[in-house]
């Protein structure tokens, strides 16, 4: 018994597991998405230092300058300039900052509310579960954009309000998924045994249930990032986003939309940024989900 340490001397691993392991090792780290996301985060955090120009002040003499690689382009404006002579690249970089801020605050708010609601609904069940899940259903039945527009009309347009609205949009998904997970976890024998050992309900929730949902939470959060960015961009595009002149990607797309024929880059560059970040986030989220899925994780 003395040298029997577990993993190495554990019973032989069944065949299907071995096959899954091999397949598993073939999976690759999604390098390009990770690269894109790193650039996104660095731009967001360091916009002040990275951006070559002030994003809000334009040079009236250099309006609609095409991107550097096109005829008439200039290396001064790598991605061109817009109709007010502002550097598109700098605006995209500062747009990343807005998106990043919105994503972080929204997910923190929506995540906390959603996780708490999911924990309570799943663990206690009964009327609490009924009430919370009905609210979730109702929320999911109302189109988010419509709700957002109404709320913005009523409450005004500010960063805080936008973020609260977006949090309202994302929490139900957290609540629903976490609840499902908790329903499973609470039937585990170790939860019953914790009760037998005298653990209080908060202790059980924090020590035994919450750690079990962390993976789900991380996966959910990564998948929500794309949704939040898209929503925020849509709101900005509709003119209901973070108020101008702060350069949000959505409002930049909206600004350039009438000038597509003359200066297509004004809309296209921020559009591409949205696409790249959302796509990368989803690819990364998919990979993370496989990576963190407990059933697959046990194999590694």
């Amino acid at each position, binding site marked *: *018994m003395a040298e029997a340490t577990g993993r190495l*001397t554990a019973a032989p691993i069944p065949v299907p597991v*071995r096959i899954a392991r091999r397949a598993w090792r073939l999976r690759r780290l999604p390098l390009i998405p990770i690269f894109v996301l790193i650039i996104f985060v660095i731009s967001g955090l360091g916009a002040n230092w990275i951006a070559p120009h002030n994003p809000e002040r334009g040079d009236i003499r250099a309006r609609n300058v095409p991107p550097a690689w096109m005829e008439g382009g200039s290396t001064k404006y790598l991605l061109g300039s817009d109709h007010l002579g502002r550097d598109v690249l700098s605006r995209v970089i500062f747009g990343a900052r807005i998106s990043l801020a919105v994503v972080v605050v929204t997910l923190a708010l929506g995540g906390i509310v959603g996780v708490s609601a999911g924990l309570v609904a799943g663990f206690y069940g009964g009327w609490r579960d009924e009430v919370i899940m009905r609210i979730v259903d109702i929320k999911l039945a109302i189109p988010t954009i419509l709700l957002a527009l109404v709320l913005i009309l009523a409450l005004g347009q500010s960063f805080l309000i936008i973020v609260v609205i977006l949090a309202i949009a994302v929490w139900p998904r957290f609540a629903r998924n976490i609840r499902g997970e908790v329903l499973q976890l609470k039937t585990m024998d170790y939860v019953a045994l914790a009760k037998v050992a005298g653990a209080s309900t908060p202790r059980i929730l924090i020590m035994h249930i919450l750690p079990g949902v962390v993976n789900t939470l991380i996966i959910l959060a990564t998948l929500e990032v794309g949704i939040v960015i898209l929503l925020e961009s849509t709101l900005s595009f509709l003119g209901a986003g973070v108020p101008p002149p702060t350069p949000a990607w959505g409002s930049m797309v909206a600004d350039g939309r009438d000038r597509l024929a003359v200066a297509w880059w004004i809309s296209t560059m921020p559009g591409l940024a949205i696409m790249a970040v959302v796509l990368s986030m989803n690819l990364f989220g998919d990979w993370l989900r496989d990576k963190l899925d407990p059933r697959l994780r046990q194999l590694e």
Partner: protein
Amino acid sequence: MINGTQATDQPILEVKDLRTYFQTRWGTVKAVDGVSFDLHRGETLGLVGESGSGKSVTMLSLMQLIPIPPGRIVSGEILLDGENLLELTEDQMSKVRGSQIALIIQDPMTSLNPVFSIGNQVMEAIKIHQDIPRKSVWEKALDVLRKVNIPAAETRMRDYPHQMSGGMRQRVVGAISISCQPSVLIADEPTTSLDVTIQAQYLKLLKELQRESNLGLIFITHDFGIVAKMCDKVAVMYAGKIVEQGTVRDIFNHPSHPYTEALLASVPKLEEDVDRLYSIEGQPPALHDLPPGCPFAPRCPYVMEQCREEYPPVFQVDEAHSAACWRLA
């Protein structure tokens, strides 16, 4: 023993030096490594071993259901009625499966498809392997259901699995597996155990089926109780090899391999008080990391110098009784 049916001279199934290996990241895992046994009609063989000892891979190799890759049947012969199954094409093999060798899984809940009626599933099994007119397929299905004692078989044909009790479903699974009159039936026991009374019904059913069609029956189990009740012959597997083989009385009365002896001494008895069970220390070895020499050596109370160096050859203990252990040298 309890089995009254006559065993003929020519074995219906003969397995010779079967080796099934898997390629894994730790190297080659010899899940089945030189397994030989034979089985006559009307005879019951118990293949005993712990999880991971290779009994399920042996069974899958017989049916040729090994996933390739990473698995590979490296060598050996599987002679069914004199014909080497390893030389058949996949097409030919799929005809053999179910019609000549059938597999019965002891879990009636998962081996029936919930969306098809009982009759449908039995008829499907018959149609795959036998070329007979539609009308008689129905008759035939009815016939097998009656054979396994399903009351009111005619009305039951239209029932769905969820409308039947667990014991009834077990009978249906039994009916499907014998519907094409296989000559060899392999019963694989799941790790979760059935209730004792349900298990007794199931064992009785298998006995009846065997008697009726003079089947060769293989039990894959870790439970010596099933062996004692059902089997004529026993093969004990450890780490991919058969370490002891003999008639059921040989094994129970004179276990010759220390592993068999230890296993028998470690199960509590229903009929008498046992002061203290023998407990086999340590754990079954990992197949990718076998010690050189005898794989049981780290747990063996009789281990000798020689055991750790060289794998013991098979020694004949008695006419039909053999074991691979240096103590017999």
